[in-house]
């Protein structure tokens, strides 16, 4: 037995010395405790990138546009049923598991985290200010849609539930954050870097909508808030940095970072560098037989289209730009596409997949059942397609804040404080620039229409319709909805895990 003990001891010794500590060694990622080489600039790029998902024709965009009176995603026979998700948005019959409503909430909060994370890595004063601006923007967007904003203060312990900022608490927080970082933000430079004027536009948005955040069903707009909007607008105007573009589509062109004199805050898109899905704007409307071949989806409603004058640049035009196709027939290639469409290289008339003329109809229904269901609905192309990067990352920067919005927000604040004449001057300045005749007078309805004509498909329509009290009314292809639809539901997946959230009324 003696030598058995020897062997046993030897065995255990061998086993013992071959023991390892079982520490993970990372090779393609950096793990906690090994992040000293991370620079805040690298995290800041990620924070900017995190806005691409929700904003650039992403889930946030869908929740603001597909729910409104300027966009429709018709079910086209075998296409676009998608389990009814688009019809839910259009008809205000969404539930707490609606795909885009869930995606926007999660995407924006994820962006909040990315922004907050920059602050953990000893950023410079400006980097910290940019990150806090991005964070404020996401908080504002969640507040606007859901009223409740989970806000995580301690980024290191995920087990601590984020506190919930509700309603005015959230808007006050955004205001205090923006004021705190204002001086550290740059006053000049590219629009895709957070800047003082961008922060001021965001402040204007908050003040303008504060009455809504206080009482969404019956908002009261406080004169002090309106005066804040006017003051901030005047400060931006006084910088003389911005002016209205003479050619409307320069604002959205592939080289809009150079051409646009209006853009105050944009999301950077550059082929081979970084950016978001700006070409989704084209794909989501473009018919399969157009160039680029798209998914033949969304359209606008004829009632909305009819708000435009024929001479309005914003309704559409032949836009000649460096990254365009030859377009020998000088066909309309931006704006609202209605009627026969053409090959922009050869000028041949296009057909649909069944060989019928590719001619977009004015009329559109939420469920298309006719034989022409491929071509129904007026298509909307606001961002001129970057044919220089066909099917690749396009260069058009995504516009979030621009000068025309500053002007029209100021006009609205004037109107809401009784200065209709002041408002009319601003509105008519804009209208003339866009190639239409000035109005004789302006009231809230006219202003909402003007905002629609100016900012269609830019992601403001839901907010505007709510602020102007039109949201719950019936419109073309949409029945009247009840007051619970002023807010989106808290998505069920977050409600299930976050005890600090309560479901919004009516869901």
């Amino acid at each position: 037995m003696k030598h058995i003990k020897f062997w046993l001891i030897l065995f255990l010794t061998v086993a013992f010395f071959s023991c390892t500590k079982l520490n993970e060694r990372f090779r393609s990622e950096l793990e906690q405790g090994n992040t000293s080489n991370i620079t805040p600039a690298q995290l800041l790029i990620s924070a900017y990138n995190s806005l691409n998902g929700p904003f650039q024709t992403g889930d946030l965009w869908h929740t603001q546009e597909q729910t409104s009176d300027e966009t429709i995603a018709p079910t086209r026979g075998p296409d676009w049923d998608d389990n009814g998700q688009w019809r839910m948005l259009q008809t205000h019959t969404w539930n707490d598991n609606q795909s885009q409503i869930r995606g926007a909430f999660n995407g924006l909060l994820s962006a909040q985290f990315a922004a907050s994370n920059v602050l953990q890595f000893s950023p410079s004063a400006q980097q910290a200010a940019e990150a806090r601006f991005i964070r404020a923007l996401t908080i504002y967007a969640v507040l606007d849609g859901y009223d409740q904003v989970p806000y995580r203060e301690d980024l290191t312990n995920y087990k601590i539930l984020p506190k919930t900022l509700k309603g005015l608490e959230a808007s006050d927080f955004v205001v205090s954050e923006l004021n705190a970082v204002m001086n550290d933000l740059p006053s000049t430079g590219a629009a895709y870097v957070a800047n003082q004027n961008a922060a001021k536009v965001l402040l204007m948005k908050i003040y303008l909508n504060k009455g809504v955040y206080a009482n969404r069903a019956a908002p009261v707009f406080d004169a002090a808030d309106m005066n804040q909007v006017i003051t901030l607008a005047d400060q931006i105007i006084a910088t003389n940095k911005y002016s209205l573009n003479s050619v409307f589509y320069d604002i959205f062109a592939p080289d809009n970072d150079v051409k646009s004199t209006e853009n105050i805050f944009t999301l950077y898109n550059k082929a081979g560098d970084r950016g978001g899905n700006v070409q989704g704007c084209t794909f989501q409307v473009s018919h399969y037989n157009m160039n680029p071949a798209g998914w033949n989806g969304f359209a606008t409603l004829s009632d909305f289209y009819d708000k435009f004058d024929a001479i309005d640049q914003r309704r559409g035009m032949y836009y000649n730009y460096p990254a365009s196709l030859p377009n020998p027939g000088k066909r309309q290639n931006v704006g609202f596409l209605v009627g026969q469409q053409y090959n922009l290289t050869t000028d041949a008339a296009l057909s649909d997949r069944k060989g019928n003329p590719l001619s977009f109809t004015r009329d559109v229904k939420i469920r298309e059942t006719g034989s022409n269901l491929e071509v129904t609905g007026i298509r909307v192309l606001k961002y001129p397609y970057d044919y220089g990067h066909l099917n690749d990352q396009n260069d058009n920067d995504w516009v979030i804040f621009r000068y025309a919005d500053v002007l029209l927000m100021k006009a609205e604040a004037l109107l809401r404080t009784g200065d209709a004449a002041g408002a009319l001057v601003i509105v008519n300045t804009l209208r003339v620039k866009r190639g239409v005749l000035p109005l004789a007078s302006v009231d809230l309805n006219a202003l909402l229409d003007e905002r629609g004509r100016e900012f269609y498909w830019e992601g403001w329509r839901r907010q505007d319709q709510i602020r102007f009290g039109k949201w719950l009314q019936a419109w073309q292809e949409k029945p009247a909805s009840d007051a619970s639809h002023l807010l989106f539901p808290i998505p069920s997946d977050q409600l299930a895990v976050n005890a600090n959230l309560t479901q919004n009324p009516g869901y």
Partner: protein
Amino acid sequence: MRQKLLLSITLMCFCFLQSFAQQRTITGSVLTKEGTPLSDASVTVVGDKTGVRTGSDGTFSINVPATAKQLQISYVGSESQKVTIISINKVTVVMETAAQALENVVVIGYGSVRKKDLTGAVASVQAKDFNKGTYTAPDQLIQGKAAGVLVINNTGQPGGATTVRIRGTSSIRSGNQPLFVVDDVPLSGGSARPGGNGDNGGNPLTFMNPNDIAGIEILKDASATAIYGSRGANGVVLITTKRGKTGVPVVDVSGSVGISNVLKKLEVLSANEYRKTLADYNVGTDSTTGRLKGDFGNSVDAFDAITRTALTQSYNAAVGGGTENGRYRISAGYLDQQGIIENSGLKKVTANLTSNFKFLESKKLSLNFNVLVTQTNEEIVFGTAGVGFTGNLIAQALQWNPTHLLKKPGTDSAWIDPAVGSTTVNPLAELNYFNDRATVNTVIASVSPAYKITNDLEYKLVYSVNRQVGNRKIQTNRLLNDQGSLDRGFAAVRNEEQTNTQITNTLNFNKQITSDFNLNAVIGHEWLTYDKRGTFEGAQDFTNVGLNYYDYLQFSTQNSRGVGSFADPTTELQSFFGRAIINYKDKYLITGTIRADGSTRFGKNNKYGYFPSVGVAWNVTQEDFLVNNSLINNLKVRLSWGKTGNQEFPSGASLDRFGFGQQSISQSNYGNADLKWETSTTTNAGIDFSILNNRLSGAIDYFYKKTTDVLFEQNIVQPAPGGKIWINLPGNVVNKGVELMLTAGLIRKSDMNWNIGGNASFLQNSVNGLVGFYETGELRGQGFSDVRGQRVISGQPLNVWYLRRFEGLDKATGQSIYSDGGNTLYYSGSPNPKMLLGLSSDFSYKKFSAAVNMNGTFGHYVFNNTAASVLGIGNLGTRNIAKSILGGSVQEAISNAPAPSTRNLEKGNYIKMANASIGYRIGNLGKDIKNVYISVTGQNLFVITKYTGFDPEVNTDAGFGGIPSLGVEYVPYPSARTFQIGVNFSL
């Protein structure tokens, strides 16, 4: 290939002619006491080196010198026997202890036991019982062969992925495949085969040559699997490869040639039917052609154009032999399996060496040395399910307008005609213009010295290295009218490599302590490391110069390029384990096992998991009151309890991590320091019995498996990095069921044998304690964007269907009617089979033998996504539709939107004639060619089912958010029916 075949036939004929007058032939059979034929018994001439082995029917035929007087018959575990052959030419030998030998040894992991000492639920399938035919991976050999084991060939793609579930699906999120162990070497479950856009993954076991496999043991309950600790929860499959046998070198050669065709074609409209339907729907006439709109005036069958009668060839040769002190087996295999879709197939070359040596005068030192080398080459067509609305190759062929030519008139090239619709892709173009190849090289080497310290105590070391290198090249020609590739072209190259190592130290103690009391114990230490990394490059914008784009990527444009690389965190698993089997009087058996597993993956608060099990068994037949009975030959009652684990979550999940984007860094997750394995606690009760001279034997098992600490990637409370966090759920998944296995020897005579066997399993599964619900089962196709059809939610079976309820077509409008207008979705049944069935039978009469194997699954629902979104009525006028849409009482409107609903949810019940084989044992041809056996085998002969898709045996990968799906069919690579002829002989 024909030449090779010709050569083999010539060779055979040549051998016929050889005969030697000074020899004579002895034939005979070797049987067990019970009359069961004993295969693989060694028959040698005493005093001569001549030797043969018995075939599967127990017979042999040996040429002996005229002077030979005696034959020696030997069989593993039996006393060898000598029989006199003076003046007799036919002998029948009964091996006295053969019955024991047959059931004797079962491999159980880190050792083996006599079958009667087993306390756990272990199914053992030996080579002679494997499914017949040509298979690419070992899991296919046991489909339908063992109770409680579900094997699904996910698609018909040669070398394609399989789904293997032992006793149901116990994990919601992490891997559910069992642990595979090849000759003491545990496999990682992964593969270095890079992913690509042609398919949905391959079978990581394809590197094995099924011809090298001697037997497969399936460990099912915790008593059996707990020795594998944190990897045992999904069951363990032990693969034992063939070994050389003592004696003169024997060369075994086998070859087979087979042809395959599509098992089932989906019924779409012929050109004439299409025209009639266009007329019925009043689509109108095209003024230029004078024909109906959508009628191009021709007649083609696109599905026929992309499919073919495919040839499969398989050749194997093995040399085995040796002495008491050194045995070896060297084998080589070649498989060339054409796919039934043109331009697809699998080629595999394998070489395998196994050797066993004994050293020292005392023979106390021994050494096993095994090397396996494989190369697989796959040619893959565009058959992935992850496609947009333009579909994959199979969808494109099904949808092709049957009135439009595939080839441009007067040319031999695919016709890309905008007239059929810009989004309609010509399947012939897809076939020719998409190119996807995967090559994987595998080397597994293991060296295992063992030293007998005493007669009872042995130390053994296993060191193995498993290295795989994979490469994939993909391209899409710029001519293909695929959105994104047209006029640009696309090419990508991906490389992956993985290296896994193993060091296992074990001490085995096996001693008859008293005459009544036997102890068989093992303790061990194991250290496994896993290492995987890869790179990829992709680019666009090529011109056609007659070369493959992926061979000159530098031509591409800068903006279109994408590159990346990854190296998984090094993963290590360190374990300590022990097992003791106590046998008292052969009546009472107790097995206790424990394993402690430590893994780099686990969170720092839970570095080690402990997995105990205990099993008891009572051999009732050893009791005095049964010892002398003639009815019951064996009756054993088993009971076991134990815990096993599952640690299939990605490395790094327990730590906060920061990942890299282009010039940017972002936090990619929150780490969970408490993260650990999930635990399955299994209780098993079973009875093994054998009655009527072992004519009827079987087993019944009941199991209850509760999985707790369920690994799950839960939605994280936002704001957070990523959307999810790996946690151990407070809830549980319960799988319970009953398994039956029955084998009957209906006829057991010296020249005729007939056995039938069957197994059935009844499974039930439910999820509890999940917070909220999670969606999976991604349904795809036109009009099916962002649609999931399955949920994981408490109180329902895993992956329960959640769909609109279809109530028929509206008579007035031809539109679908759904319950509650389609605004409500309903729980609509489970995709998990309630019953699995396997049936097999073998028959032999003299030199003829026959075998059939059938399997089936019952009680589950399959979503026919192919019918739902590929062949819907909306295609009419541009593309083809399913025949089944027509002929109903209501004419469906062309504009009726296809929607994920119960309309396409079908019962998945089926029973399949999986394979059948008849063979004839020719015996010896002359002096040199022995044991010639020829066979004809059919695979996938027919399916009995009401399911309307290609094949109810299907599992298209429709996982979402990392949660696997089950029971979706979406334009899979179609299943094949194969007929083959095979020849085996020895030299």
